[in-house]
């Protein structure tokens, strides 16, 4: 049963301690508390600072290339045989994904705070590339932490980061994926907290990160709302976005939360199938717990140890999710579903062949679900898929899965 959200309610979330209902918060060791409180204070000040906002908007326009188009996918719509399918083209952003919206914003924050050294974690490498890119532009020292397994399966992005001048640290602890990269980034931060700014790539982590990443990514939904009204003459009936940590999804959903008629669908990585346990779908099959500085839905065992995850897409291969999504799930405002590796691969090929748009494997999860959803909806209905990133980085993985040697 969904509750009706109002602007007044949303303005109080997160609360002053970073909580979205039972989720979020600030669960970190004491050494980081002072930095997080300073970051929160400065961000809340800069959020209202016209100079900061003007610079952010200018960078998004002139450097990222915003607004990104909203495109009517005519052939895909015919294929699904139901609702009209529109694509929000975040893949056309500079660096090829939505991640750069956030790194532009956080790098600007870092500059205002006088920090000269940047660290970031990355899964698929898109956030790492987007961070290395803004660091190159601003002349900032850049260190990227990446799980050793991801370094291997996303080697193109590793090389891109190096070309941009970043140092890539391959993380060999734990499961050697995104969560371990985040652990090591936190360890670096606690050690170099005086001069270092941690650019977290998703809407998870300790307060105020889920707040500020959501704010920076909300440009996606704001544009989509305006473009829908202008191009289609109405609001969409449904929005579909993939969810790993959930930054592209929250960026798309947030400006529509009070629009009751707009259904929201977050698509998690079903991996080999939810029943197999080999997936990365905490909202679909996990339970609340505390990891990486926030309380949220997690994949964990009965003893509270974090489970290994599996997804064909490195960017979704994470056992947690942003706390605001956990809250949206519990209040019933957004639906969280999953699609398997195989379905996502089919979505990848379908969008590539039908529209000439090659999506990231993360994004392909959203495409796959949207096809099913569209088929069940009337032809006068409208769906927007957030095309969060382009698929060039995944070509090696796709070739390997298809048994082709490049």
């Amino acid at each position, binding site marked *: 049963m969904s509750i009706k959200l109002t602007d007044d309610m949303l303005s109080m979330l997160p609360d002053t301690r970073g909580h979205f209902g039972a989720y979020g918060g600030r669960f970190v060791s004491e*050494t980081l*508390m002072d*930095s997080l409180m300073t970051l929160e204070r400065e961000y809340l000040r800069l959020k209202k600072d016209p100079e900061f906002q003007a610079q952010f908007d200018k960078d998004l326009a002139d450097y990222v290339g915003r607004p990104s188009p909203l495109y009517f996918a005519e052939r895909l719509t015919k294929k699904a045989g139901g609702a009209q399918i529109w694509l929000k083209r975040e893949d056309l952003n500079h660096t090829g994904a939505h991640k750069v919206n956030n790194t532009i914003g956080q790098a600007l924050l870092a500059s205002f705070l006088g920090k000269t050294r940047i660290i970031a974690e990355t899964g698929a490498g898109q956030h790492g590339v987007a961070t290395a890119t803004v660091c190159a532009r601003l002349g900032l020292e850049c260190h990227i932490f990446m799980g050793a397994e991801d370094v291997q399966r996303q080697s193109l992005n590793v090389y891109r980061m190096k070309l941009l001048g970043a140092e890539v640290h391959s993380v060999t602890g734990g499961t050697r994926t995104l969560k371990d990269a985040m652990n090591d980034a936190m360890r670096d931060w*606690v050690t170099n907290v005086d001069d270092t700014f941690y650019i977290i790539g998703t809407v998870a982590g300790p307060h105020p990160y889920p707040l500020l990443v959501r704010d920076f990514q909300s440009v996606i939904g704001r544009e989509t709302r305006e473009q829908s009204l202008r191009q289609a003459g109405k609001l969409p009936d449904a929005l579909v976005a993939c969810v790993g940590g959930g930054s592209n999804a929250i960026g798309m959903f947030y400006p529509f939360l009070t629009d009751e008629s707009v259904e929201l669908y977050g698509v998690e990585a079903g991996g080999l199938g939810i029943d197999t346990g080999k997936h990365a779908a905490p909202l679909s099959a996990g339970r609340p717990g505390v990891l990486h500085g926030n309380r949220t839905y997690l994949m964990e065992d009965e003893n*509270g140890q*974090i489970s290994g995850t599996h997804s064909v897409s490195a960017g979704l291969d994470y056992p947690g999710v942003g706390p605001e999504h956990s809250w949206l799930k519990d209040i019933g405002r957004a639906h969280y579903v999953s699609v398997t590796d195989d379905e996502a691969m089919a979505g990848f090929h379908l969008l590539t062949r039908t529209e000439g748009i090659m999506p990231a494997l993360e994004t392909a999860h959203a495409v796959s679900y949207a096809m099913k959803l569209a088929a069940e909806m009337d032809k006068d209905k409208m769906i927007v898929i957030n095309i969060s990133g382009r698929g060039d980085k995944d070509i090696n993985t796709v070739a390997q899965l298809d048994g082709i040697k490049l």
Partner: protein
Amino acid sequence: MSRITGVLQALKDQGRKALIPFITAGDPAPDQTVALMHTLVDAGADIIELGVPFSDPMADGPVIQLACERALVHGTSLRQVLGMVRTFRETDDRTPVVLMGYLNPMEAMGYGAFADLAKASGVDGILTVDLPPEEADEVAPLFTARELDAIFLLSPTTTDDRIRAISEHSSGYVYYVSFKGVTGAQGINVAEVAEKVQHIHELTALPVAVGFGIRDAKTAADVGKVSDGVIVGSVLVDTIANNQDNPEQLKKALTDLLHPMREALDGLAS
């Protein structure tokens, strides 16, 4: 008076400093932990900090990360760790035991159930690395009601206001993290520690124990001079890793490490 407060008060009355070793429960194997705890006591430990293994120990360096991995290979759970404390208590009812770990295993067990079982097992204090007092309003009262000491961290970046507020939420002792970094890193600056700990003493009446970076008797004595106790972790855990296949040799190696620290600390009293 809690067992922790009693021990620290008695030491203070004697002009002595607390030696607080840390090991990870279940490392190298669950059936060795209780024996290792007794070894620590025999070598001079006043209080034991027993690490609860966690899959994602964000505040720890590689040494304790690997200890967690070794313990988790054997499936060491929080429930089993509490069982180890219960067994330890059968033959030692005077050495306080502080559980040190991360919040999620406690949350998974349920805070009420955890607090009950901890008390019943003979645990004296709880130190949760990723639980600042701001987030402890649900959990801390459960500990207080069962006379379990809630121990919080202070760090070089903790402001005076926070030192006061954190101390108010704490009992037993406060744990001062000697430098910005993870466990096992190099970086302790004794002069800086002395200055900050003296300042903390001005802001709270609680005993102050100092951890991170204490690897030898000299550093232990230098830090002991300005604090109420020293916490020694990674160097012990490293020793466990290096002697994991030979329990007798391990016992000797741990004793050889701790004994000089004990003597150096007691040398401060005279």
